[in-house]
């Protein structure tokens, strides 16, 4: 009996370990997406181009990951030279591959990261 309990607990822990590794990996992807979006947007020539460039950079950063419901918001403000822009990337990592662990931690672990960047002071602006 104790063998069964111990084996179950050890197996559960081993799967939890894999799940944690999975979550950490996806967390890194969300962080990278947010900061790369910020830096790409900060180098864009206009606020509209900043939105496009930031979203593209963020999508590229998470393209190889398994983050679901990925969203990135880019707040450019007035997009003044030397100003600050803020990006927030959020997503969800599914624990569907770990059935027992997902019952404890939930089906989906939310991940979020906010990054800031200085809008390039000397870049030509269109419009």
């Amino acid at each position, binding site marked *: 009996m104790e063998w069964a309990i*111990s084996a179950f*607990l*050890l197996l559960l*822990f081993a799967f939890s370990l894999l799940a944690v590794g999975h979550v950490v990996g996806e*967390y890194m992807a969300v962080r990278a997406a947010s*900061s790369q979006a910020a830096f790409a947007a900060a180098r864009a020539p206009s606020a509209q181009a900043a939105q496009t460039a930031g979203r593209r950079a963020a999508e590229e950063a998470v393209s190889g990951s398994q983050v679901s419901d990925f969203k990135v918001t880019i707040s450019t403000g007035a997009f003044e030279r030397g100003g600050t822009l803020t990006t927030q990337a959020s997503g969800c990592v599914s624990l569907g591959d770990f059935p027992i662990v997902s019952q404890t931690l939930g089906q989906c672990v939310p991940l979020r990261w906010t990054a800031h960047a*200085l809008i*390039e002071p*000397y870049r030509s602006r269109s419009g």
Partner: protein
Amino acid sequence: MSARGHVGERGQVLVMAAAVMAFLFVPLCVFLVDTGLVEASYGQLGETLQASVEDGASQIDQQAFRQSGGRTAVLDESAARQVCERSLETSGLPGLEVVSIRTTATTVTATATVHVSLLVVGTASVTQTRSAGFVLGR
């Protein structure tokens, strides 16, 4: 071995399982999370530094540039340092500490450390140096 021989051994597997969890799985889990945090901070520090030195390297001395009719372009070292520092501050990277910002006539070099709070052990420090120079006409 008789059934009576097992009586004194009851609970041994539970002890072993507890030991495996305490000395293998828990440290492994902590190591996994800490490694991820340090790796993420390392990558982000590099990106932040690169963006900051590039911001700094865009600060040319406008007066010298205009007086020379666009022939001479040198870095405004003071402005470059300020912009680089401001860019690093703006990034809001947790645990960021600017170690040094050096400028020459054409390049900006910044060194920064990020202190990452680990789960158990305390903090880990990651240091990186990045440089950027300005290029005219591209």
